[in-house]
């Protein structure tokens, strides 16, 4: 009996399944995000210390989580490519990179825009901010390495190795606020003993996180579909070129 990953190993099957799922996923993401924005702007009270600036947290925290989730997807896909040679693993890794990079950039921008009024500075070289900046450069490095190599199979393997080496950044980001003395506050949502955030602020934050996560998955599926199509186009173009070359070689010389 085939496992679900084996069933999905067939790109044609993946295209059929993702075409069915994608509209529902996109709709769910839009509705969840609309509800989250309603809660953020019309229901959530100002924080007793941050005031209305807490509204930035409703987009900053999900962006930071998804920045790390994007890299986790790349690392797992890279593992799937190198160990199991799953046909869609490299498609998944390649598709997740620009999306993860975008969320990392958003975490950095929104964090800076929160930091200026709260800390008095847009940027400080503390462990959390610096490690997230390194994550952003890692994403750029993965995309640059892949595009610099012409052979797709070699590019996939080398990118996967770099992705697995770079996975060390994830625990550094997560525990940076515990290991070093940072300006960035320690974990307050996901922590032992429960969240320290008031439920009136936690609710919009979690709903926003669910909405952005659904959007992430929808965008990842769409990017994977694009990549499958790109590879089909490339394969057909190569077939056409090879046939033309054979025809040219077989033609009698005048």
């Amino acid at each position, binding site marked *: 009996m085939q496992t679900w990953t084996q069933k999905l190993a067939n790109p044609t099957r993946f295209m059929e399944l993702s075409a069915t799922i994608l509209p529902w996923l996109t709709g769910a993401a839009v509705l969840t995000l609309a509800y989250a924005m309603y809660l953020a*702007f019309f229901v959530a009270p*100002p924080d007793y210390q941050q*005031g*209305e*600036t807490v*509204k*930035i947290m409703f*987009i*900053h925290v999900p*962006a930071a989580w998804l920045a790390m989730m994007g890299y986790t997807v790349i690392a797992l896909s890279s593992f799937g490519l190198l160990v199991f040679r799953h046909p869609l693993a490299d498609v998944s890794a390649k598709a997740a990179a*620009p*999306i993860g990079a*975008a969320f990392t*950039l*958003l975490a950095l*921008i*929104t964090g800076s*825009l*929160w930091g*200026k*009024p709260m800390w008095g500075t847009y940027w400080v070289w503390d462990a959390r901010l610096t490690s997230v900046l390194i994550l952003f450069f890692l994403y750029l490095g993965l995309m640059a390495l892949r595009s610099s190599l012409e052979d797709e199979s070699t590019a996939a393997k080398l990118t996967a190795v770099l992705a697995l080496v770079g996975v060390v950044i994830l625990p550094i980001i997560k525990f940076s606020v515990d290991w070093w003395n940072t300006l960035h506050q320690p974990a307050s949502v996901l922590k032992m003993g429960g969240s320290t955030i008031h439920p009136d602020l936690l609710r919009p934050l979690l709903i926003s996180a669910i909405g952005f996560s659904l*959007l992430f998955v929808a*965008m990842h599926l*769409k*990017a994977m*579909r*694009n990549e499958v*199509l*790109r590879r*089909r*186009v490339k*394969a*057909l*173009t190569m*077939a*056409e070129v090879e*046939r*033309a070359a054979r025809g040219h070689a077989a033609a009698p010389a005048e």
Partner: protein
Amino acid sequence: MDLGPHAAFIWAAYAAEALVLAALIGWLFFDGARQKQQLADLERRGVTRRGSGPAKGTP
């Protein structure tokens, strides 16, 4: 809606979020449409993985 003395930072953060995500979504749709167009062009010319030219049985 009164967002207090730091309203500009809040609006700037949400604007950046909307801008980056809109650019990403726009690129995904543009890229998908381009790939579909290229695939349709190749299939219209009868290109298959086993070779190109009109399919058998077609005039």
